[in-house]
């Protein structure tokens, strides 16, 4: 982007009132491969594009289950994403243990956003924390709290990953986006990562229908949105991952075979629609780009 004298340190303001390091961290998110999320009243769907480095390697995991009722999709520095997922899982499981009840998504998201600002020790006041790993600290009143201190001190730089947090709680289905700046927003549908603008355009056209969508429709829209980010490349289940969480359905990543079948059934439908249009209007050149399965 721009190199200037105010961007070396995350603790240095620029004269224009910007923290360049944070903005650069948000750039890292934009470079990552796409992830999208959308939600209805009862379900939330996350989908991501997985590009493997070579045909020989497996692709990176970008969707993580955090708890039965929460999952995240990441874009950016996936290594940071893994560490954060571990933190989120830890928070969820501590809450479940103490209260026998799932952590509300909104609260988890706020805790994560706060973590972007402060190291964890400051949040838990009156607390002894030690250097390594995860510790059980017993307070004088008998409660015990879990504190997590990462020895690599990676909190000295903003984390370079954007997270789409999908979850269900008492107040319904939620989709949040946490960015490295520490801000978080709730969304009906959102896309992050490279070429996410194409997906966002697609979602913007259709988001008003999402609240009432069925689970299948949501998944279909997710797949179409992913397709938009591929810019003409063929959509197959080997380059995308889809996960869903909903009322009565714990967070789970949908099986690759099922996804492939869904993709094929959508494409067949598209083809049928296109053929009918062809017969009706006889406009041969106006075939939609999705309707060319013969070109495999």
């Amino acid at each position, binding site marked *: 982007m721009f190199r200037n004298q105010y961007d070396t340190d995350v603790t240095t303001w620029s004269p224009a009132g910007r923290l360049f390091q944070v903005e650069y961290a948000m750039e890292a998110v934009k470079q990552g491969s796409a992830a999208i999320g959308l939600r209805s009243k009862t379900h939330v769907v996350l989908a991501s594009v997985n590009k493997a480095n070579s045909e020989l390697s497996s692709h990176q995991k970008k969707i993580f289950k955090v708890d039965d009722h929460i999952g995240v999709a990441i874009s950016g520095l996936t290594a940071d994403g893994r560490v954060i997922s571990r933190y989120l899982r830890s928070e969820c499981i501590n809450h479940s*243990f*103490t*209260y*026998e*009840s799932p952590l*509300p998504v*909104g*609260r988890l998201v*706020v805790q994560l956003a706060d973590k972007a600002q402060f190291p964890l020790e400051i949040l838990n006041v009156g607390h002894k924390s030690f250097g390594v790993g995860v510790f059980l600290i*017993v307070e004088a*009143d*008998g*409660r*015990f709290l879990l504190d997590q201190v990462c020895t690599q001190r990676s909190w000295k730089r903003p984390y370079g990953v954007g997270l789409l947090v999908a979850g269900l*709680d*008492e*107040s319904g289905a939620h989709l949040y986006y946490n960015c490295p700046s520490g801000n978080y927003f709730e969304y009906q549908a959102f896309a992050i990562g490279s070429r996410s603008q194409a997906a966002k355009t697609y979602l913007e056209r259709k988001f008003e229908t999402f609240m009432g969508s069925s689970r299948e429709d949501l998944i279909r829209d997710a797949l179409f949105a992913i397709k938009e980010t591929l810019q003409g490349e063929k959509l197959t289940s080997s380059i995308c991952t889809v996960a869903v969480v909903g009322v009565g359905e714990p967070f789970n990543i949908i099986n690759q075979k099922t996804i492939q079948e869904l993709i094929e059934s959508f494409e067949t439908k598209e083809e049928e629609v296109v053929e009918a249009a062809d017969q009706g209007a006889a406009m041969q050149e106006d075939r939609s780009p999705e309707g060319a399965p013969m070109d495999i």
Partner: protein
Amino acid sequence: MSLIASTPANNSLLSSGMESERTLYPYVTGTSVIGIKYKDGILMAADMGGSYGSTLRYKSVERLKSIGKHSLLGASGEISDFQEILRYLDELILYDNMWDDGNSLGPKEVHNYLTRVMYNRRNKFNPLWNSLVLGGVKNGQKYLGMVSMIGVHFEDNHVATGFGNHLARPILRDEWHENMSFEDAVKLLEKCMRVLLYRDRSAINKLQIAKITEEEVTISQPYSLKTFWGYSAFQNPTKGAEGSW
């Protein structure tokens, strides 16, 4: 109660504070608490006595308290430990309210939190000497549970602490049923409390009944139960044993 000074006073300035200070025996205690589920929610009853050993020393101790919007807590055992628990719960509810996000801790969450507190204290050999009854309603779901001082916890349709377990629960097992009306449930509780009043030495005839429903919590004003002592066997108590008193 115990005049034996077996533990040194803990307010010695010379003590580094590392001297283990722990509860060894309860001093001021409350007796049974009974809780039952009924049609609209939970009903709980407890008397207002605080015994100092065998002396019925305090007669206006409120042993039923509301916690947040959705729960009711009743405690028997050491009163000062109950007050400590109320402080913890106060803080818990405060932080919960501070989130201000439409989520709130329900009775199940409070019950489990208390279980963790009680169990952890027991593990450090410094128990909170109480048996707690936690009841509430949230989103139409009724919840009634108990936690003991060693962290034993469970849920049921009717629970009791202390003597209530022995005297009241048999009555409840026979006469409790689902969806009792408010009046029937109160009558049932009063029946149990009356038995406890007759038979439990630490019970006093001044009780409160607390009700929690989806909409509200109400704790009644203290009142007394009618008792009957005119049994013929009491007329001449030494009839069968001349010379006794």
